[in-house]
């Protein structure tokens, strides 16, 4: 029941965005910490690859869920019970594969690397994080308003 409550909104998607921006922030912080380390090559996570994986996950989650992907009884029982249900029966486990995109760390060849560029990437990453967290908290605020039957 809770998975439908949280799953039908953009919560799982935003969760992945927050996960990615946090992981990328860690990598960028490591770069700044190692600015003077001899032989260190700058690392980064590819936002493009992440966006691509996220898009694929969104497409997959809209397709009727397969028993191999489904969340426990949610995926197994409901997808087999009726075709009409599969319209709302989304495949949320598809988002699990998004994290594959940030297991692959890119290494720059050391040409265009500077503190300014790293901080720039960090600021943009932070903006994305703030946006996702902002929208997430707004979603939960709306949920709380619905539960308490009070205007938020």
């Amino acid at each position, binding site marked *: 029941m809770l998975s439908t409550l949280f799953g039908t909104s953009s919560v799982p998607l935003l969760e992945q965005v927050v996960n990615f921006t946090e992981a990328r922030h860690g990598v960028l912080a490591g770069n700044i910490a190692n600015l003077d380390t001899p032989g260190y090559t700058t690392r980064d996570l590819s936002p493009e690859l992440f966006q691509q994986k996220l898009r694929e996950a969104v497409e997959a989650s809209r397709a009727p869920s397969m028993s191999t992907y489904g969340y426990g009884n949610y995926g197994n029982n409901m997808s087999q019970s009726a075709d009409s249900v599969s319209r709302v029966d989304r495949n949320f486990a598809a988002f699990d594969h998004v994290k594959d995109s940030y297991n692959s760390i890119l290494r720059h060849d050391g040409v265009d690397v*500077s503190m*300014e*560029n790293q*901080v*720039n990437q960090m*600021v*943009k990453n932070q*903006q994305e994080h*703030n*946006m996702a*967290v*902002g*929208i997430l*908290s*707004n979603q939960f605020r709306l949920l709380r308003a619905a539960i308490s039957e009070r205007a938020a």
Partner: protein
Amino acid sequence: MLTSFDISTSALVAQRTRLNAISSNIANMSTTRNERGEAEPYTPRYVTFQTDTNITSSGGGSGVKIGSVDLSTAEPNMKYEPGHPDANANGYVAYPNVDMTTEFVDALEASRSYEANVGVIEVSKNLVENTLRIIA
């Protein structure tokens, strides 16, 4: 929207490179020998900027990159110091033609430009944060 960060960052990198060249010029203003130890005065370096069309915003703004680092063509300053080990046959020593006033004014300008670009980044950040306040 986020390309404005890239444009300002390109300017930060460019101004820092310029400041590096200026500090090199000031540090070597009395250098009379080259890296091999031969008597040859240091030649001042000057950084030239160039618009970088790889970084462009939708409004037509473009970033900046280092076009070239050129060596000064000015003749060295000749000082009469017969006892100096690097003096020529006539007793003159060639000193780098570094004008400290010019270098300092350039350094000040580079540092102010850097600050200005940091200011622009702050403004861009504010802009994004305010947009965020609407949607979240």
